[in-house]
C-alpha cells in the first residue's frame, strides 16, 4: 500500500455534533454486496430534508463539488459500525477529515481506507469551517506527519496519534499485510488459550 503523507485540495464543511453513520449513509443503501455507487448517497436523507425546506446541504452545493477534505465537529461518525459510511464519503471524494472528535469504530474504519481523521480544538474547527464558508475556493493542505492543516494564510496544528500517523506514513494503514506476516506467532498465542484446546488441561 502507498504512504499517505500529504492531502491537498479544497474543503467542504458539514457542521453539527453527533452526526451518526445512519445519517452519513441511511440503512436502505446497505442493501448491497459491494461498496460501489455509495458516493452519491452520502448524507442522502439530510440532503433531501434540507431541499424540502428550500435549503441546500453542503454536499449539494456547487462551490464544494470536487472537495476532498471534510470539515466536521464533535463525535462525528457515532453509532453503527457500518464501513459503508466512510466508504460513501471516500467514494464521494473525501481523502481526509478534520474535526473535534470521532467515534472510535468510524475512526478505525477510516484508517483502513487510508483516510486520516485529524483532531483540532472546537475553536479551530469553527475557524476553518467559517473560512471555507466565506471562500470555498481556499486551498487546503494537510501534512500528515506534522498534522498541520493550512488554509489560505492560516496554519493550525492538529492531533494525529503517533501509532496511527506511522501507519499512514509507512503505508501500513491497510493492516492485513502486516497481520498476515505473524501467522506463526498467532498460532502460538492461540495455543496458549484454554478455550482453543477445549479446556483440556
Amino acid at each position, binding site marked *: 500500500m502507498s504512504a499517505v503523507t500529504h492531502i491537498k485540495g479544497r474543503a467542504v464543511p458539514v457542521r453539527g455534533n453527533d452526526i451518526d453513520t445512519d445519517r452519513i449513509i441511511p*440503512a436502505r443503501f446497505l*442493501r448491497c454486496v459491494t461498496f460501489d455507487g455509495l458516493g452519491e448517497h452520502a448524507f442522502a436523507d439530510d440532503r433531501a430534508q434540507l431541499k424540502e425546506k428550500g435549503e441546500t446541504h453542503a454536499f449539494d452545493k456547487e462551490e464544494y463539488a470536487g472537495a476532498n477534505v471534510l470539515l466536521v465537529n464533535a463525535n462525528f461518525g457515532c453509532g453503527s459500525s*457500518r464501513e459503508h459510511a466512510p466508504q460513501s464519503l471516500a467514494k464521494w471524494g473525501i481523502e481526509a477529515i478534520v474535526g473535534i472528535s470521532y467515534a472510535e469504530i468510524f475512526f478505525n474504519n477510516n484508517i*483502513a481506507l487510508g483516510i486520516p481523521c485529524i483532531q483540532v480544538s472546537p475553536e479551530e474547527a469553527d475557524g476553518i469551517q467559517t473560512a471555507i464558508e466565506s471562500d470555498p475556493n481556499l486551498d487546503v493542505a494537510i501534512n500528515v506527519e506534522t498534522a498541520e492543516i493550512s488554509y489560505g494564510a492560516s496554519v493550525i496544528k492538529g492531533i494525529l496519534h503517533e501509532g496511527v500517523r506511522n501507519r499512514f506514513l509507512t503505508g501500513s494503514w491497510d493492516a492485513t499485510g*502486516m497481520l498476515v506476516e*505473524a501467522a506463526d*506467532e*498467532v498460532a502460538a498465542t492461540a495455543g496458549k488459550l*484454554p478455550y482453543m484446546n477445549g479446556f483440556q488441561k
Partner: protein
Amino acid sequence: MSERTLFDKVWNQHTVKTLPSGQTQLFIGLHLIHEVTSPQAFAMLRERNLTVLYPQRTVATVDHIVPTEDQSRPYADGLAEEMMVAIENNTSSNGITLHNVGDGKQGVVHIVAPELGLTQPGMTVACGDSHTATHGAFGAIAFGIGTSQVRDVLATQTLAMGGLKVRRIEVTGALKAGVYAKDLVLHIIRVLGVNGGVGYAYEFAGEAIEALDMEGRMTVCNMAIEGGARCGYINPDQVTFDYLKGREHAPTGAAWDNACAWWSSIASDVDAVFDDVVTFDASTIQPTITWGITPAQGLGIEENIPAVSDFPAEDAALIGEAYEYMSFEAGQAIAGTGIDVAFIGSCTNGRMSDLREAARIAELHGGTVPAQVKAFVVPGSEQVKKLAEEEGLDKVFVKHGFEWREAGCSMCLAMNPDKLVGRQVSASTSNRNFKGRQGSSTGRTLLMSPAMVVVAALEGVVTDVRPLVEKGASA
C-alpha cells in the same frame, strides 16, 4: 493505567505482538458475521488471494435484511436476495457454519451466539456490527468492527487495535419494581453522554448489576456502545456459569470444571486498578425513555422535556435540532405522548425474559391495542420464537392485538420491509433513536423497556408502567 482488570487480563492473554505502529495485534477467539457487513470482506480476500485462516472460529447468521413475515425465497426485495446468496456462497466455500433461516438457530447475531454457548467468558469477540458489545455480558471483550477489519479477522484471526482505558461503572442498590436493565443503561448513557465512553472499556459492576440475570446483563452491555465506549463487560460469576451450562457449545465433563476455573481467574481482581470509577444508585432510577435523536437524550417518565439551559452550551444546536425533529417543546411532559407504532424486539430486548415480561404486562393491563396503533413483536431468534410459542406467549400477544413475527432485526434498523411511515412515532425496545433509523427519514423513535412499550401500545400514549407492576405484585 488500569491493572488486573478483566480487560487487562483478556487483552494480555490475546496479545500476539506489538505492531510497528504501536498498536497491538490481538487474537480474536470468536468471529461472528452477518449478511450486511461481510460480502465486501470476502470480496477483498478474493482480490488478494487470501483464505480464511481459522474457519471454525467464525460463525455466520442472517438477521438484518430477513423479512419477518413472508420468508419464502427468493425474497421480494432483489437486493436482499442477492445478499442472502452472497453469504450462503461465502460461508459454504470457506467452510464456515451458517445458521440460516429455518434451521432452528437463526436470529439476531448477538442473540444467537450467546444462546448457543458460543460466547464465553475470557474470549475476545469481534463482529462487523457495533452491538457486539452485547457479548461482554459474559466477561468477554467484544468489539464491533468495520468491513476491512472483518477481512483482517477472516484472513488472520487477529485485529490491529489500540489500547483502552477501563472505567468501572459501579451500580449500588436495587432497581425498583417496573424498572429494568434497559432503564438502567438508558440512565447511565443519559448521565455520561453519547461520547462519555470514547477511549474506554466500561466495566459494569456493583450489586444492581450482579442481581441481573444474563439477559438483563446483555441488555446493559449491548448499549455500552451508545455511550461511546469501545466495549462493555461484566465479570463472570455463578449466574454466567449457570446460563452457559448445557448449551450446545459449552464445555462438558472435566473440561467444564477447567473452564469454570479459568473463567473465574479472568475476572477483575479485588485490588484491580481502574482509570476511573463512576457510581450510580439503582434505587433512584425511574422508567427511562428517550425524547430526542441520540440515545443520551433520555429522561425519567415523571420528568418533562428538558430546557436548552439544562445542557452545556456546545449542545445547544443539537438540542434545538432534537426539539424540531421530534416536535417536542421544553417543559412538555413525556407521559401522554401519542404513539403510532410499538416495536418489541432487537438485540437489546428480543430475548425470552423480555417477551415474558411484555406478555405479563399485557395480561395485567388486560386491554387491546387500539386501532390507530400498529404493535408487533419480533423474537430475537428462532430458538426464542419456539420457546415463546411453547409457553403460549404468542397467543397472549395476539389476544391483546400485537402481531407475532419471525426472527430478525426488523424495525430496529428497518432494512427489511418493517418500516415507519412519514412522521410516525414509535415506542421501541431497540437501541437507536437516530433520525431516520426506523425506516422513514422523518420517523420518530422513543426508546424504552419492553414493559413500557407494552403499556404505550395498549394505552396509545406513553404511560408509566409502575402502577400496573405494583398491581401485579399485590394481586
